[in-house]
Structure formats: C-alpha cells, structure tokens
C-alpha cells in the first residue's frame, strides 16, 4: 500500500489533535489525496466460535512485538461481533488496578494484560468478555456509551483491549486520556457514534464499520448508523501512533537501527 511520505501531505500547520469531537462536520478530516486505499474489500471466512479474532485490515500497532517502523497501511473497515457496555466504563473496569504490575512493553505481560480485559465489569454483565480459560476475546468491536475510558491515565486500558483482540471501540463519547492513549498506541481505533447505539445493539450482534463512509452496519438488526469522522486524530492513527507520526512529519529522526 503506497503511502505518501511527503511532509506536505500532513502539514504541521494543520496539526493533528486528540479531540474527540469535530464540532463542524463540514471540516472533517479527509485522508490526504496521496494515500492509496484498496478498492476491493478482501473476503473473509465465516465466523465460528473457534475462529480467531475477527477480520479487519491490519492497523499498525505500536505493540511490544514491533521493533521496526510499522507499515502505514490504510484501514477501511472492521467486521466482527460486538460487545456492548454502558456509560462511564472506567479504567478500573477495563483493567483492574491489581493487574497493573504487568508491563505492557514486555511481550508476555502484554498478552497477560489482554486476558484480563474488562474483567472489572460488575456481575450485571452476564456475558463474559473473554470466555473462561481463554486469553482472547471473540468480540473485536466494543460498543459503549458516554465517557468511555474515564478514570485513570493508565495506558494498560487501551492496551488490554487491543491485546485481547479488540480492533475498534464505538462510543458515544470518550474520556480524553483514554482517547489519547488509544491514538498514541494505535491499539484500538476509537470511534464516536452520533446516537446511543449502545442501547440499540446487543452483545453478539454482527457489525461492519466502514471508515470511509463513517458508517456502522448492524447485520443482526439490519440497522445502519452514522459515525462521527475521526477528525484530526486521523493522521496519527493512520501513521500508526504518535511515534510513527512524528517520524513521518520529521519531528523525530527515523527509527534507530
């Protein structure tokens, strides 16, 4: 996938930001014209309960496993089953504090963090996010209400979700540090819905998110929803996180050998 590496493609005078909202949709971010996007969506195999985490085009992730500069591929869609949560899902519920002794930059501990994702949800959530004896989730999309990720600045929160197999979160709104951490790490793609889809979708529904059209399709209910454009965080996400973005824009030198 060719990516325009010219620094003029994303100029610093229109700096990316970590805003969750783009108050004027008419000014929403459009990908720079030189970014090539795939014209054909790849096919994906039918999902079964044993299937690996759901399909999506690879998002570059600044995970512990990556030592080289992530390839800057362009994400156009997510597809998979959703797990629905409510408002104010705080970082203690996403990854309880007792697991914070795990260091996300260590590969084995990164995986362990993933296995504890959303384990802090109260017993009112009848369906487990990760099955007993599993370390990955079968839900690659999390749908939430307001103020998702509130509470602590712990980066372990988006990391745990990403390590568990979550590709994207669609929430009504985000707490800022969580949103920022999601963008900086590239672990999960943080999207905002226009309406409270957490009240219209159910855990297990089959979902497709089409980024270019800012659309979420619930195949199970047959409904479609508009999503808010990612806004100025787009270039950072597309680049693969804050480091990749800073390299691409010449803010820091290329990866040390």
């Amino acid at each position, binding site marked *: 996938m060719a990516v325009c590496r010219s620094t003029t493609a994303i100029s610093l005078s229109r*700096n*990316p*930001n*970590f*805003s*969750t*909202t783009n*108050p*004027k949709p008419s*000014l929403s971010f459009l990908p720079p014209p030189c970014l090539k996007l795939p014209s054909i969506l790849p096919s994906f195999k039918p999902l079964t309960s044993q299937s690996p985490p759901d399909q999506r085009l690879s998002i570059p992730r*600044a995970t*512990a496993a990556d*030592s080289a500069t992530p390839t800057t591929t362009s994400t156009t869609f997510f597809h998979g089953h959703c797990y629905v949560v409510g*408002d*104010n899902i*705080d970082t*203690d*519920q996403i990854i*309880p*504090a*007792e697991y*914070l*002794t*795990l*260091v*996300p*930059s*260590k590969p084995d501990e990164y995986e362990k963090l993933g296995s504890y994702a959303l384990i*802090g*949800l*109260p*017993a*009112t959530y009848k369906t487990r996010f990760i099955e007993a004896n599993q370390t990955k989730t079968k839900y690659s999309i999390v749908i939430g209400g*307001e*103020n998702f990720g*509130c*509470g*602590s*600045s*712990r*980066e*372990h929160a988006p990391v745990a979700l990403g390590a568990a197999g979550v590709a994207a979160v669609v929430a009504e*709104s985000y*707490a*800022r*540090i969580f949103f*920022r*951490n999601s963008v*900086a*790490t590239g672990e999960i793609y943080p999207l905002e819905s226009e309406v409270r889809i957490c009240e219209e979708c159910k855990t297990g529904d089959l979902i497709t998110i089409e980024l270019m059209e800012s659309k979420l399709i619930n195949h199970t209910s047959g409904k479609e929803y508009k999503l808010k454009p990612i806004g*100025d965080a787009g270039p950072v996400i597309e680049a693969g*996180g*804050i*480091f990749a973005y*800073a390299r691409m824009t010449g*803010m*820091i030198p290329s*990866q*040390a*050998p």
Partner: protein
Amino acid sequence: MLTSRYLQVYLLAMKQVDKDILSVMASSIISPPSASFIVKKKELGSSAFSSSSSPSPFSVPKCNKSAAKKIVSAMAPQQAERMPATTGSVKTAMTLTEKIFARASEKPRLSPGDNVWVNVDTLMTHDISGPGSIGIFKREFGPDAKVWDREKVVIIPDHYIFTADKLANRNVDILRDFCNDQNIKYFYDIKDLGNFKANPDYKGVCHVALAQEGHCRPGEVLLGTDSHTCTAAAFGQFATGIGNTDAGFVLGTGKLLLKVPPTLKFIMDGEMPDYLLAKDLILQIIGEISVAGATYKSMEFAGTTVESLTMEERMTLCNMVIEAGGKNGVVPADSTTFKYLEDKTTIPYEPVYSDAQARQVFLTEYRFDITKLEPLVAKSIYLCSLNSPDNRALARECKDVKIDRVYIGSCTGGKTEDFMAVAKVFLACGKKVKVPTFLVPATRKVWMDLYTLPVPGSGGKTCSQIFEEAGCDTPASPTCGACMGGPRDTYARMNKAVVCVSTTNRNFPGRMGHKEGQVYLASPYTAAASALTGFVTDPREFLQ
C-alpha cells in the same frame, strides 16, 4: 443528581444546536427561576461572539441543592478557528492555561483548539507506568538513548511498594536500573520495604512529593503518567496525566503535541464554614457538571474562598479535576503560593494570569456561594446505578448508611492538613471510633508530621496520639495504598464487599479492591465523623 443530569443533557443538547444561535449567549447571565430561564446577552465591549440572532430559551431547572446561588454564564463552545470581531481587531486576551501553552510552545498567542508542540518542564513517572514508559522509550529511541534532560525527569515509586508481589517489586527495580543508567537526578528510591524510614530518598505519593520537593512551579508544564497529576494545578501551572507512549515520547524529546483546552471558570466566594473542606467544594462541582463535564477543558478556580485556601487545600481541590474529565485545573499563583515555595525551590519561575478582559474567553463561568454549601459525599450505589464521583449527596442525608470502615489517605486526602482535620473531629468528640479506621500518610514528611506537630487546641498532643486514643490503626507506611486496591496484600485493601467512607478520589466498582464494595468519597471531617458513629455522618455533629 437532578441538576447535574439536566446540565449534562443541556451540554449535550448544545452540541446539536446551531452554533450561530449559541454564539449570542456570550457571557449571559441566567437567573434561576424554577422551570426555565431566558438567556440574556450581557453587555460587553467588542465581543468576539456578537451575533445578530435572537437568544434562544433553554430550560434548566434551578439547582436544587440547598440555596446555593448559581449563576451560569453560557458561551458558545470554542471552535478551532476563532472568528475576529466585525471591527477587525484581533483578539489577544488569553486565559492562564492558554498563556502557559503559548510560552511553552514559543508562540506569541494561540487559541483553544490549536495543536502545538509544547516544551515540557518536568516529567514524572512512578512504579506503575514507569517501566512501560521506559520500555517504549528504549524501543523507539534505541537501547542506548539518553533522556532529554536528566534533571527534568522525576521518578517516584509510590503505588505498589509495601507488598510481597514480585512483579511490583521488580517494577521498582526497573526504575532503579533506568535511573542509574541515565543518572536521573530525582529518584526517590526504596529498597528496604520493611522499614520505609531506612530509605533516605523514599518520599511516597508522587503528587504530594512533587509539591513538597519543590517540583511544582507556577507557569510551567508538568506531565505525569498518572491522572492525578492535575493536583499540581494548585501551583498555577499546566499539569496533566499522560500514558506510557506519550511519556516515552517526552523522555526522548522533552516535547509533546497537545491541544489547547478552553477554560471553564469556577468562582467560589464566601468565607469557608468551619465544617467544610476543599473536598466538599470539588465534590459539589463534580456533582454539578458531571464526570464528563470538563472533558477536554481546563478548570480555573477563583474567588475569595479559593484565595483563602492553603496550598494543601488547593491541591485537594485540583486533585479531582480529572474526576470531572478535566484536562487540567489551575489556581492562579498568589502570596500563599510564593510563601509555600520559598523554602522548596531555587529554580526561578514566572507565574501567568488570565487577562482581565479574558472574561469573554472563558467557555462557561460557574459561581458558588460557599456559605450555603453543606458537607457532601459521593455515593456508592451498587447494582442499580453507578458508583461514580458525580453521584453526590448531602452527608446528613446518608446518616442511615451503616459503614464498615474508614480510610484516610491518598494524594486527595492523606496530607498533613487532612490528618489534622481528622484529629480536630476526634478531639471535639473525645470518644473512640466505632469502625476500623485506616490511616495512610501520603509521604514520609506527612508521616513525620503526624508524630511531631502539635494539634491546635489539644494541649500539645500530636495527631498520632489523638489517633491512638481514638482507637485508630497505627499510621501506615506512606504510599498510595488501598486507594486503588493494589496487590492483594496491600494494607487496608478492600478484599470483601464492605462499605467504606474514604478521603480518596474514585469509587468506581472495584476501585478499592472488591467489585461489590461500596466507597463513599468524603472530606476528612466527614470521614472522621463517620468513623465515630459507624454511619455516614455530617461532621457538624461534632464540630458545631
């Protein structure tokens, strides 16, 4: 509560409404009739937001909490590009936070919504997020890379210290190795876990240690890998929490890309009643605006009440800015600040202040008459609704809530003055506590104060003596402790589903360890009063 819900709906509704209509609401005064209010346009000089549209009425019920007079001036939310006034004059007034951003990004002026690379004055990290940040720093800048400035990185182990958990202990070792490699100037190390005093450098809770060691200075940019880094707002600086990846970036470059937040102004006037503390003030505010009411915004505190607060009380106030979703808080530096800093730092600093004519650049202004407020708790309601710092109630309304324990500690409520406040209530009562009462001083200095400083009106007794006479647990080693649960063997961790009144900052499900546990956030006065009765108790039972 009702008001906060309506305010939430109102603020959400604002997003949907045509911005042109909203722009006329610049600096309007809303009088609080019971059912609805009409927004009136206040007279201003050349406002950046003047428009010819007529005002739109919005319904917001009057604040139903006591008789607190609340005037809310609503303004149009700031856009990324601020339109100049029709006269063509360029607006130059900036808020305190904007000025800090301008200086830190070396720009003459900027506006909310601008994204700028700021120079960081201090980066703080601790044992929870330090190892991950270090890992990212090494991965991205190379295993032999050096931090941008060995004197501007402050590393403070404080969270999971006094535990047998091997990973927790290892994380402190990782910090030590890094500090040795990098020759980090400020590393408050601990090796002997059995006796914290045997460690010459160990301090304790990072946010309190930062202040006590003189790392907080007006006008500066302080970033920390902890959401309560906003505590340092008490010093008139920009201070906010960041994650490991951002911290790794700062370690290598000394810069970070930040977006300039608009500022909400909270004006608190009136003499502080002797049963209220700063904790009550911030619980009031969070209850008014909700846990997302200040998301992406700066919270500036002003007014005669704020000016009368000590530095530690200002720290308590600013500590919970994050609980309202705030990006940062700020208390303008004054003589109280300068006096506090006199013996703590020799590094020159330059305070900045919001422009006098910057009234129109505050997004929203809230006013509180403090004399009308009462002690509050943030309620913990399990199952049906949500444990949340914005679920606020009057302490006296909760007097039938039986409790199992009281916890005094954390960056929010574990400072010397917090313990003094607890001692004052015990002294006034003269009896023993009815429930286990855990005391965890935030830092070694606080711990020392408990054993050395005389409590006013006690005839020379120290806090520790008063606590002992009241039947509390012995003050523990300074650390964050059970505020966020921690490893299973953490002192005072909630390992069963019990009800706790706590001077800490969060009460989401499982916060102190057990998912079904209930945590009532309260001021030190309220916590002490509750310990004495075994129920949630308004401190006026003992203080008046």
